[in-house]
Structures are given as structure tokens and as C-alpha cells.
């Protein structure tokens, strides 16, 4: 009995040594992979990006250290290597996604700055024109006044001349008044359009029922929703709530002025602003897709100011199920 125990003991010892030798051999690869993995895990930038892939790689490493003997070893080692590679690549992917998003935000910011700059320049030109008109009209009036005074003192022929100058001055003054009125009118048109925002109703479009927010819901040239667009937005929220089963597609559109790039980005940014607003109102984000179409799908002619205003819009569409 004693000898049997001794024999058993020595057998166990030999077997143990063999396992330890095997384990020591595996350790080289295992060590290399787990070092690479912990390097990824502790990486200040990448470490947080691929937690689930890191966990899968760790599981593969565990499988390698527990079962990686004999014939299975090659396969388990290969799998562990690949899973570590995948974890690294996934972390890098997420890092790039973050960079991409940041650059995209920066891009939008720059596009808006460019659009604002253009608008600013246009406004300055208009102001200059208006000032010039005013100066011209005052000058004409002054000349007419002088002519009339002269006319009273001098002959009828001279008076006739003065009358002519007066008529010319009147015509010029009328022209100026007309220009001023035009400028006022465009302001009035903007106000009328803003009013039009409120009686919003759903219409049937090619892709399903839709509602349209026009560009006065936004600050000019910008993608932020104006505070006074909240009534329109509430209508949109109510509209999309009516059909909770349908996917929501948000399309931003612009008119054809400006570069295609600026338009694309502005329309996209506006579509996203509406998406954010809907989400903030409690609409499930997984229902919503938002895209910028730019100026490619006008609903009215881009020749007139009115048509352009109609083309600057955001459509909110409840997609028909296919």
C-alpha cells in the first residue's frame, strides 16, 4: 500500500513537471499577446474605445492558457492573435470616428462662418446703395430749391428750367422712395413668412406624410432653431407622435445661392438641429434619420426671393412602410 502511494506520488510529480514545461512554452506567446492587450487597455486615448473587444480578446487569451495544449494550441493561439488585432483595430476605428465627428463639427462651424461672412458683405453693399440714393435725392432737392429761388427772380424761361429740375428731383425722390419701400417690403415679406410658420399642416409627399419647417425657424445663415419656432416644433412633435410605428426622415434643403458645399452642410446641420429638438422632446432617436440634401430638391423656382425662401426648408417625413 505504501509503495503504491509512492508510485502514484512520483507519477503525479512527473506529470506536473511536464505540464509546467508546456505552460512555460506557451507563456511566450501568451505573454506577448497579453502585454499588447494591456498596453491597449491602459492607453490614455484608445483604452476606453473598445471595451467589449478587449474583453473578447481577454477571453480568447484565457482559452489559450487553459486549453492551449496539444493540437488545439495552434488554433487557440491564432484566434487570440486575431482577437487582439481586432481589439486594436476597433479602438483605432472609434478614435477615427471621434476625430471625424470633431472635424465635421469644425467644418460646419467654418461653413457657417463663411456663410455669415457672405451675408454680412451683401448687407453692407445694400446699405451703401441706400445711402447713395439718399444723398442723390437730397442733392436733387437742393438744386431744385435753388432753381426755384432763381426762377422767381429771373425770367419765365429760367422758371421753366427750374420746373424741369424740380420734376427731375421729384422723379428721383420717387425712385428713392420706391427703393426704400422695396426694402421695407422685403422685411414685411419675411414677417408674413414667419406668420406662415404657425398654421402648419401635414401634407402627403412622395415618401409619406410630411411637415415642413421653413427657414425662418432658423436664424439667417445658421443652423440653430430660433426660440420663436417652438410652436412650429411642437406641431412637428405632435405630428410624429401620431404615428409612433413609422420611421422619421428629416431632410434639410437650401436654395441654390452659394456653393454646393456650404448648402449641403447648412442643410445637414439644420436637419440635425431638428433631430436634436425632436429627441429632446422625447422622440426615440432610433426612429429618426437626418440628412442634408442641399439645393438639389427645390419646391419652387430659385429665380425669385419668394421661391428661394420656400426652398430653404426642413421637411419632416413619416416614411411609409415598404
Amino acid at each position, binding site marked *: 500500500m505504501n509503495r503504491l502511494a509512492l508510485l502514484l506520488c512520483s507519477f503525479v510529480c512527473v506529470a506536473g513537471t511536464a505540464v509546467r514545461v508546456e505552460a512555460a512554452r506557451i507563456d511566450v506567446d501568451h505573454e506577448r499577446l497579453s502585454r499588447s492587450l494591456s498596453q491597449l487597455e491602459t492607453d490614455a486615448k484608445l483604452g476606453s474605445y473598445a471595451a467589449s473587444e478587449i474583453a473578447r480578446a481577454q477571453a480568447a487569451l484565457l482559452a489559450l492558457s487553459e486549453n492551449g495544449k496539444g493540437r488545439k494550441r495552434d488554433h487557440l493561439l491564432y484566434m487570440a492573435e486575431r482577437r487582439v488585432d481586432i481589439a486594436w483595430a476597433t479602438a483605432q476605428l472609434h478614435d477615427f470616428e471621434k476625430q471625424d465627428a470633431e472635424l465635421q463639427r469644425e467644418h460646419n462651424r467654418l461653413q457657417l462662418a463663411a456663410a455669415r*461672412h457672405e451675408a454680412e458683405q451683401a448687407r453692407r453693399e445694400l446699405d451703401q446703395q441706400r445711402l447713395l440714393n439718399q444723398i442723390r435725392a437730397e442733392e436733387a432737392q437742393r438744386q431744385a430749391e435753388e432753381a426755384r429761388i432763381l426762377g422767381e427772380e429771373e425770367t419765365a424761361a429760367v422758371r421753366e428750367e427750374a420746373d424741369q429740375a424740380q420734376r427731375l428731383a421729384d422723379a428721383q425722390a420717387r425712385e428713392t422712395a420706391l427703393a426704400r419701400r422695396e426694402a421695407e417690403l422685403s422685411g414685411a415679406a419675411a414677417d408674413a413668412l414667419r406668420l406662415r410658420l404657425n398654421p402648419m399642416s401635414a401634407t402627403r409627399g412622395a415618401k409619406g406624410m410630411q411637415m415642413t419647417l421653413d427657414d425662418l425657424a432658423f436664424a439667417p445663415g445658421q443652423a440653430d432653431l430660433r426660440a420663436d419656432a417652438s410652436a412650429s416644433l411642437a406641431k412637428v412633435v405632435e405630428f410624429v407622435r401620431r404615428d409612433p410605428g413609422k420611421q422619421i426622415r428629416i431632410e434639410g434643403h437650401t436654395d441654390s445661392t452659394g456653393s454646393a458645399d456650404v448648402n449641403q452642410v447648412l442643410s445637414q446641420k439644420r436637419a440635425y438641429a431638428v433631430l436634436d429638438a425632436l429627441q429632446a422632446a422625447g422622440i426615440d432617436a432610433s426612429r429618426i434619420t437626418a440628412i442634408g440634401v442641399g439645393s438639389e430638391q427645390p419646391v419652387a423656382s430659385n429665380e425669385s426671393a419668394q421661391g428661394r425662401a420656400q426652398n430653404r426648408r426642413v421637411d419632416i417625413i413619416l416614411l411609409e412602410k415598404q
Partner: protein
Amino acid sequence: MTPSGMKIHASILVLSAVLLAACGPTRPPSDVLGNAQLNLASARSSGAATFAPLELRFAEERLEQAQVALQDRNYALATSLAEESEANSELAAIKARLGKLRESVDRVRQKNADIQRMLDASARDPGGDR
């Protein structure tokens, strides 16, 4: 429980494990290559041929070898190869997305620099006529 009782339980466990292991590979698994084929298709459609040709080739080779092993009724080998093919396809797809994203990042960065330059130029020359 007595120590001898524990030993008996342990040996039953070991025996059943051995039996299971012996039975396992002889039974043809239902769909050994399905996932590997799916992963390979999705890697191809995500542009792996351009961005991760090496990983894509590994995935294809291992899938072919798995098919051969399956014909030889070597199910254990077929399963291992299919798994390796899957992992390669997965890696190829991620690298393809990474490659595309890298291009997009470069493109946007370039555009941003262009706009910035334009804005800087007009800031230096305000009210320039157009």
C-alpha cells in the same frame, strides 16, 4: 460526503467529459460555414479588397480549407478553420471601415483648411469687391 464518495463523483464527471469530447466531433455540426460565409460577404461589401487585402485573402483561404475539411468529414478541423476565417473577415471589415474613415478625415481636414484660408484672406482684406 466522504472523500471516497467525492472521488467517485469526480471520476464520473471525468468519464462523461471524455465521452462527450469523443462524441462531439463525429456528429456533423449543422452549419459550420454559415457564419464564416456571412462574415466574408460583409467584409467584401465593406471594401476590404481595397483596404485590407491580406486579411481578406486569409479569410478566403481558411474558408476554402474548411470546405475541404468538411468534405473529408473532419468536423473539428472545419470548425476551427471556419472560426479563423470569421475572425479574419471581421478584422478585414474593421480595417476597411478604418481606411475609408481615414480618407474622409483627410478630406474634411483639407476642406477645413481651405475655408479657414479663405476666411483669413477676407479678414485681411475686408469689403473686397466681388
